């Protein structure tokens, strides 16, 4: 008895110790990033590892936030992450629900068409041409419409809807609900955990909008946050390395300091990270419990 207790104690000790080390290893880069963003660049050059800055400074943040475009770019990003996410959920959910119901006509054909987009990507030039010809260049919608949904998410969500029994739906229809009503009142509320999870995927995706914005947005006032931050952190010493003969063209612009980059990382990640705690509780909810008896 006594011996066993000692053994479990040791096991727990080692176990906790290991997990603690792994936990610290994952926390440390985040900690270091945040700390560096508050450090004076000169101090950063002189010390090799900074765990606690001698002097705290907000200079890096001041520099980034003083950009006149900061407010517009963050509102574009917020617009994308909210409106974009809503629309994506609606379209993906609607599509996935439709193809998960066996009574849908041409269901197979629709599924194959969805799968084709999953297997083949046409590349950048056709996409650019479509966006331009529809007249979406320099419009926020060019950042939402092309990425409204993806075959992958439709398939994942379909898998989720497949697990909702038909009998539940029939019950609602007997009570006089139509398809839209069933989808809106029964299916969506039941799928809340899935919607939250997918919503988070979409929101992070929209928040990180970068490449499409580079391609489709010429007007700086329409830049999302990530593009703006990237442009502020351009290293002028690497500009124009495409020139022949290894003769690098160098611009009169100071090299962004490491602390500035860290501050940009913090600004770019913190807002979207703040969303997680609010959605946490929805993940845990068991939605299907007691809804129907088979």
């Amino acid at each position, binding site marked *: 008895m006594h011996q066993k207790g000692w053994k479990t104690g040791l096991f727990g000790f080692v176990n906790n110790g290991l997990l603690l080390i792994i936990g610290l290893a994952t926390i440390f880069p985040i900690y270091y990033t945040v700390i560096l963003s508050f450090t004076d660049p000169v101090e950063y050059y002189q010390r090799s590892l900074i765990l606690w800055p001698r002097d705290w400074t907000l200079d890096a943040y001041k520099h980034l936030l003083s950009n006149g475009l900061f407010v517009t770019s963050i509102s574009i990003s917020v617009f994308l992450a909210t409106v974009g996410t809503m629309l994506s959920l609606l379209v993906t959910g609607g599509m996935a629900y439709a193809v998960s119901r066996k009574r849908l006509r041409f269901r197979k054909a629709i599924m194959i068409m969805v799968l084709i987009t999953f297997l083949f990507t046409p590349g950048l030039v056709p996409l650019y041409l479509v966006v331009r010809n529809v007249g979406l260049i320099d*419009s926020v919608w060019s950042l939402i419409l092309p990425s409204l949904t993806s075959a992958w998410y439709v398939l994942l969500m379909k898998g989720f809807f497949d697990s909702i029994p038909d009998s539940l739906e029939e019950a609602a229809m007997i009570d006089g609900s139509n398809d839209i009503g069933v989808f809106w009142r029964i299916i969506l509320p039941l799928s809340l955990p899935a919607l939250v999870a997918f919503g988070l995927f979409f929101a992070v995706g929209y928040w990180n909008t970068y490449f499409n914005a580079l391609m489709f947005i010429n007007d700086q006032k329409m830049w999302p946050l990530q593009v703006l931050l990237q*442009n502020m952190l351009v290293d002028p010493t690497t500009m124009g390395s495409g020139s*022949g*003969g290894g003769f690098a063209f*160098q611009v009169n612009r*100071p090299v962004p300091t490491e602390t500035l980059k860290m501050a940009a990382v913090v600004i770019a990640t913190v807002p979207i990270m703040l969303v997680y705690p609010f959605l946490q509780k929805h993940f845990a909810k068991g939605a299907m419990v007691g809804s129907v008896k088979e």
Partner: protein
Amino acid sequence: MEKMDARPSKSFLKMSGVLLLASSLLLSACGSRGGSPSSGSESGTDSSEPTSITIQTLNYATEFIDNTNPLWKELEKRTNTKLNITWLSPSTAEEKINVMLASGDLPEVTFVETMQNPQLQKMLKQGVFWDLTPFLKDYPNLNREELKEMWEITKVDGKNIVIPRYYPSYGGGVFPMIRKDWLDALQLETPKTLDEFHNVLKAFKEQDPNGNGQADEIPYAANPSALAYIYNIFNETQGAWKLQPDNTLSPIITSDASREAMLWIKQAYDEGLFPKDFAIMKFSQVMDTMRSAKAGVGGMSMNHAWVTGKAVKDVDPKADLMPLAYLENANGVKYTPSGSPYYGVYLIPKKVPEAKVKKILEFFDYGYSQEGNEMLTYGIEGVHYNLENGKKVATPQAVTDKTGDGNLNNMIHLVSDDMAINAVGMPDEVYERNVEIVTERKTVKVPNPSGELYSEAYNKYYPEISKKVEDMRVMVITGKEPVESYDKLIETIKSDPKMKEITEEISKAYQDKFVK
């Protein structure tokens, strides 16, 4: 029962109807939001009406200006144009330009960063752009003496299709920038040869130039790619190719001189003259090391005597960064970096009417005139700068209107060495010394046979080959591989059919262009 069967299909119709409606609403919403694509193709023959010109070009500033900017307006007024400029951020321009070229969606004036762009090369052959040769003679400022060379070397099959953007040949490029105050503290001469340079680095390590009693100095802040010029010093040529007496080019990557250059770097590495994580440092980390004021030498273009020099001074007030003029190899042959007299080119697609082409050339002619050229960089006299003792002193308005910060001054560069050797706020003595050094650099003529050549095989195969060699060099320098493995690799590359194909293509391109 029957009712039950009919119901789903009816509601399916309803549902799809709603979806259709929703999607059409969405589409119409975006249609109204997105502006129509620019259509500035009304011909500009009427001399009183301003001609509208759509231009796509790079912008190096953090905030781009638009047509409400006073300098922009002044430029429109003086050239009688209506400018519609699409700015591209330089770090990402290449991808976007490639997509635009591939889609044929080109503004009336299109900027491409390098003539070696494969897509551009194809289009030049297809005749997508105006041949400007017959028009050029009418524009005196485009024929300025300083610009002659750039027009000459950018010819495609003897025709001037591109409008090159001027950039000085000397003053840029990665070359040692040395801590003059450290040299003075140790009473050392400015190094002129590679041997002297090596000795200076050693002295920086051993003799405590910063005088703090600790051996904390890093003689040379560098990573392998910042030392590429060492190979050029040994090979006595610019670029990756060396001209042979029979008018063929040979790759310097496999030459014996490159082997010696590698061993020179290896010796310096073994003596601890580079940072300890030399092999894995990124360029920004090299610059950080420089700015920590602990390094004696860094590789930079001449304007960094102040751009970076000031950052070093913030840490160590005595610091003084001085570019080297040149370095001599063991054969007594001098080397200094020099490049093409232009950077990037403008193109006018054929869909632009001839009258407008002339108008566009007129615009560039103004941009390269003394008056227009200075205005684009310094702004308007009395508003953005005042003349004091013959020098232009910027007013606060210059900052407000974003003058000279990478906006309009990068559309057409100032025709002056200042592009590469001056910087905002550079003190007179640093500037004057830079002028002296760049004048000295100009006496050193290092051939650059491959600078303007294009080869498809080179684009396709060379990056992979050079990556292999560069990786091996680093292994040898850091002592992880013996020199014999390097020799073996070079032997296989010499007999590689791909390398032969590249060499033949480049040599042929050289002969087509320069040997008549």
